[in-house]
């Protein structure tokens, strides 16, 4: 790695000729400049994740044949990020879309961009790649200028080549040479004018879909390595269960069984064929005797339990400006139960220990943190563990993926040179994944005589929303070993993003407001990040309460919100959703119909989203049908409009499923929602007749991401529509038929 990095390209001695770039970091892992070495403070602020990984060739490589490879530390989760990032690179680098390929999260090849989470992929990786691509383009133009002895401003990059006066043309392949791109990014970048976009801001078809609909290899579940063995874990029946005894003799004799592993409470079986492993797992499960103990709260009293737990209180907003006197005060409590990620494909990983290096193919959202945890668990040096992201089914946050990776690695560690495929069963995914935490919010606010909010007091009670690896103790397998790793101490995620307190501060203009995050340390039920984290419940609560206030003020819900919103982009999104829905023309609710509206800006710093909904509630059964939904979203510069729409439709439907049906169930000892029979989710019969999404495009503005913007607003729009239809307010999720009927009464 060169240490003489210069920011002035013209002074570099560039070797003529062709040649692909050598990627310095691929051969010497641990040489990342950010990794705790070097004077960080002197580095200028670089956009996105460039700040942590400033070398341009960490992001973009140009081959001898002109093919471009982009590298991202983010992972394709089904949100279309691969295609979007390719669009970004193709656009800025001025290369045909088909000539770019993307390498995603791989601890040996890509930057460490943390987790693919929080809707940060486009914001951080997209920004980094866009910047890097733009700067690479300028470097190539500068190199062409040098060779053509022409001023750079007379040259332009088009379709993978630089064109100059007198029909001069040099392809990128001819321009590139060793180390040309091995420079740090500059703080300023010449970004392409959005009005000239040919590929960004277009609904380019996703590159991954054709394989997925034609039986191509697309998921970690599809991997087949030579000599691969099949493994299954036998998990304990409950969180605190201890394995007293297991007679593995009979299992080892079963056809095809290669090995039975036991390490403390960790129990697994490996076989040649997959169904042999499944049968052996069942037999092993029957052969094991466990000692269980009660550790779970009373499900029927979940909110009271949370409110009664010891809490670490953080006041995250406390402002008192002058305002009119309060004339009406309302208060309400809102709650949601534990929610399951419910990935349709149970987690799976493939691991292979060979030549002292453990390679793990996993659909974890964070290859670097998972690698770190697994290396710690196996007591292996970090550079001997290699995690490669391969798609799984949608995870929607921290599901069983990281644990499945650890299980696979643990098993492969016992079977050197044999690739091991570890597949979780449906019941294991449902019982052992870390759930979205149950939460309670209490809010009190006052209106003045003009119907404006003059004070606001909001408190939210929640566990941490982040127990990802990191430390080995975050892994199930590590917790179950004979010499276990202790689960790490949970810590609140800091504002402005927050965890349980994400979106607990309303965007509305409130003269007097106090917001308190009551961080609950004890986690009787395993929890972690579920799509949108605390924003789901906080927006549900805030936006439900806004409607209750609007009703008390005699105001239209949309007008009421606009009266308290100063941010012009927020106002635009509210107006657009209302318009898209034809809110002003909605009839008076009758015959069980109702209309609801909600708005939020994700984390108060990402995408703006408003949702309007029409429902029909059957008074006799309490069943709610969502007839139509209309949404508006402002996600900054749009990369792929169809991708944004896909994510929004998905967010709304997923939120409807959470809010209409879902609740993790448990008794004193065990999780009892163990499959789709016991944890029902939305099916086609409940899908609305239409969902329309209006995208407010803001070309040239920063990317804001979109994957988690819809959950909160959709949930509140639903609750508001149900209240509008029935005249009664339900504040506890889910709004299932039984609860709505009980609220309506006879």
């Amino acid at each position, binding site marked *: 790695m060169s240490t003489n990095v210069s920011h002035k390209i013209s002074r570099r001695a560039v070797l003529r000729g062709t040649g692909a770039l050598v990627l310095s970091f691929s051969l010497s892992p641990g040489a990342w400049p950010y990794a705790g070495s070097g004077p960080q403070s002197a580095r200028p602020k670089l956009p996105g994740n460039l700040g942590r990984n400033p070398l341009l060739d960490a992001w973009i490589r140009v081959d001898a044949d002109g093919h471009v490879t982009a590298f991202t530390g983010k992972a394709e989760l089904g949100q279309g990020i691969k295609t979007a990032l390719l669009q970004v690179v193709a656009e800025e680098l001025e290369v045909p879309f088909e000539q770019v390929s993307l390498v995603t999260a791989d601890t040996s090849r890509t930057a460490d961009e943390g987790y693919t989470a929080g809707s940060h992929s486009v914001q951080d990786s997209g920004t980094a790649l866009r910047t890097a691509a733009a700067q690479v383009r300028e470097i190539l133009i500068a190199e062409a200028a040098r060779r053509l002895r022409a001023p750079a401003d007379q040259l332009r990059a088009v379709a993978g080549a630089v064109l100059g006066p007198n029909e001069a043309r040099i392809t990128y392949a001819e321009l590139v040479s060793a180390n040309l791109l091995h420079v740090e990014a500059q703080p300023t970048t010449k970004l392409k004018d959005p009005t000239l976009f040919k590929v960004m801001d277009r609904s380019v078809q996703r590159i991954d879909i054709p394989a997925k609909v034609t039986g191509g290899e697309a998921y970690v579940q599809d991997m087949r390595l030579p000599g691969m063995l099949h493994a299954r874990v036998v998990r304990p029946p409950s969180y605190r269960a201890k394995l007293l005894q297991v007679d593995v003799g009979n299992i080892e004799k079963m056809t095809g069984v290669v090995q039975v592993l036991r390490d403390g409470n960790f129990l697994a079986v490996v076989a040649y064929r997959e169904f042999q492993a499944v049968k052996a797992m069942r037999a092993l*499960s029957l052969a094991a005797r466990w000692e269980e103990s009660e550790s779970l709260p009373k499900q029927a009293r979940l909110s009271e339990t949370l409110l009664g737990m010891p809490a670490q209180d953080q006041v995250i907003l406390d402002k008192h400006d002058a305002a009119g006197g309060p004339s009406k005060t309302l208060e309400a409590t809102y709650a949601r139960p534990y929610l399951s990620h419910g990935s349709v494909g149970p987690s799976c990983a493939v691991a292979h220990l060979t030549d002292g290096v453990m390679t793990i193919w996993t659909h974890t959202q964070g290859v670097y943190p998972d690698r770190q945890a697994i290396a710690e668990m196996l007591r292996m040096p970090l550079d001997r563990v290699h995690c490669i992201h391969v798609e799984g089914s949608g995870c929607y946050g921290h599901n069983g993926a990281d644990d499945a990776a650890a299980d696979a690695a643990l098993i492969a560690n016992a079977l050197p040179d044999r690739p091991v495929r570890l597949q979780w069963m449906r019941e294991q995914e449902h019982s052992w994944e870390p759930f979205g935490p149950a939460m309670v919010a209490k809010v009190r606010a006052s209106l003045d005589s003009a119907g404006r909010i003059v004070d606001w007091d909001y408190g939210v009670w929640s566990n941490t929303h982040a127990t990802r690896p990191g430390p080995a103790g975050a892994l199930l397998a590590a917790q179950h070993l004979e010499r276990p790793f202790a689960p790490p101490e949970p810590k609140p995620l800091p504002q402005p993003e927050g965890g349980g307190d994400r979106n607990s501060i309303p965007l509305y203009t409130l003269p007097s407001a106090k917001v308190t995050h009551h961080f609950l340390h004890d986690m009787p039920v395993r929890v972690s990040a579920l799509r949108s984290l605390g924003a789901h419940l906080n927006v549900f609560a805030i936006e439900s309460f806004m409607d209750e206030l609007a009703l008390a003020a005699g105001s239209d819900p949309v007008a009421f919100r606009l009266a308290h919103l100063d941010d012009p982009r927020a106002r635009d999104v509210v107006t657009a959703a209302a318009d898209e829905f034809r809110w002003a023309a909605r009839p008076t609710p009758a015959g069980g119909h109702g209309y609801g509206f909600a708005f939020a800006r994700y984390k108060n710093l990402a995408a703006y989203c408003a949702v309007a909904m029409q429902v029909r509630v059957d008074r*006799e*059964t309490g069943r709610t049908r969502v007839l139509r939904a209309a949404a508006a979203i402002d996600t900054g510069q749009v990369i792929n409009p169809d991708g944004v729409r896909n994510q929004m439709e998905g967010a709304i439907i997923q939120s409807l499923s959470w809010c209409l*049906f879902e609740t993790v169930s448990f008794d004193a000892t065990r999780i009892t929602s*163990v499959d789709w029979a016991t944890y*029902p989710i939305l099916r086609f019969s409940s899908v609305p007749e239409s969902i329309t999404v209006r995208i407010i495009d803001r070309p040239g503005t920063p990317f804001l991401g979109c994957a988690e913007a819809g959950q909160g607003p959709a949930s509140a729009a639903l609750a508001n529509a149900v209240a509008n239809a029935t005249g009664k307010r339900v504040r506890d999720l889910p709004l299932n*038929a039984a609860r709505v009927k009980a609220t309506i009464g006879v």
Partner: protein
Amino acid sequence: MKTFVTRRVVIRLLWVLGFGVAGLVVYAWRSALPPADPPSADSFNADTIRRGAQLAALGDCATCHTAPDGETFAGGRPLATPFGTIYSTNITPDLTTGIGRWSLAAFERAMREGVDRQGAHLYPAFPYDHFTLLDDADGAALYAFIMTRQPVHAQTPDNHLPFPLNMRFLVAGWKLLFFHEGPYQPDAAHNLEWNRGAYLANGIGHCGACHTPRNSFGAEIRTRQFAGGEAEGWHAYAINSDSQSHAAWNAEALHAFLSRGWHEQHGDAHGPMAPVSQSLAAAADSDVQAIATYVAAEMGNPKHDKPAADPPNNDTGAAIYTAACANCHDGTRPLPFGGIKLTLSTAATGETPTNLINVILIGLHPPEGTAGAIMPGFASTLTDGQLESLLSYIRANFGARPPWTGVESSVREARSRVSD
């Protein structure tokens, strides 16, 4: 399902016609009751309405009086009977298509005598032969409940009944022969709880409408009450001393089963019984308790048929069971929805294989958003021969009873009802 429209039946009908047409016409004529002004919601006491809701839950009015994907109580559900298809009526208080202009007297006459406001006889698919037991207070409560529902404008479709069955006055003849009007008569030989259970089960609960066998005129055979019957292609098991349940029912088990829809020793409610138990969730618990007490007493100590001597060798059936069924039905999956051990299931021990065949072919699909057993249907997977092997294996190994008869025709009949 037997086809009742046999030659025998036709001859009998001709007899009846010949004998009593004139007298029947006189007897059959019923006056129209004048249309009433629709009562306002606040003319009813809230407690009365609530009581009516509980009774409606016991009677499960909503299931018959709601079309698939239709408005609750607005009628239009087709009911297949041996005589043709009858559509349930709109019992919302709609003024033109519902019963919004029915007075309490008209409502009570329909419930207790099977005559509508206009004076037409109602087909006994509407079980007024049970509702006739209703006392005044309960009738008034039901009326209060029904009249405070949302009115829905929905025209009831015409019935598909062949001539002469579409002549309603003939129903008067049926009533003459088979309908015993009148309130519930308490049985002094039993206690209050039993009597309350009998009043409810035989009255609003109309359990016998499914669980009692019927004669060729479609009337319940009163001497064989609760000896088992048919409903919508399913067998309603005997709930008297002919019960073939593996584990004996007692009041406590029945109460749990009826109010929750399942019991560890008996399985879940399926087929037409599923909506019944869902509806019972809204009934008064003391009422369900009383019904359980009564029915348990009716069951007494059932005598089971002797088990089969030696289960015949059935490798195919055993292999199919092990490969396709055992994972759920012989494993550690938790109840109530994990898959019942078939020794406990009346599907294996019961009088006919109908329900077992239905479940194997169709599977189990709970209503949207509700927790419930999901079982895949095997209609496309099993050939008739494979299904018969499996059935006889299940019967021999889990039912431990003599083999069923007529399995082939039961399978054929079920297949014709099941579409993919």
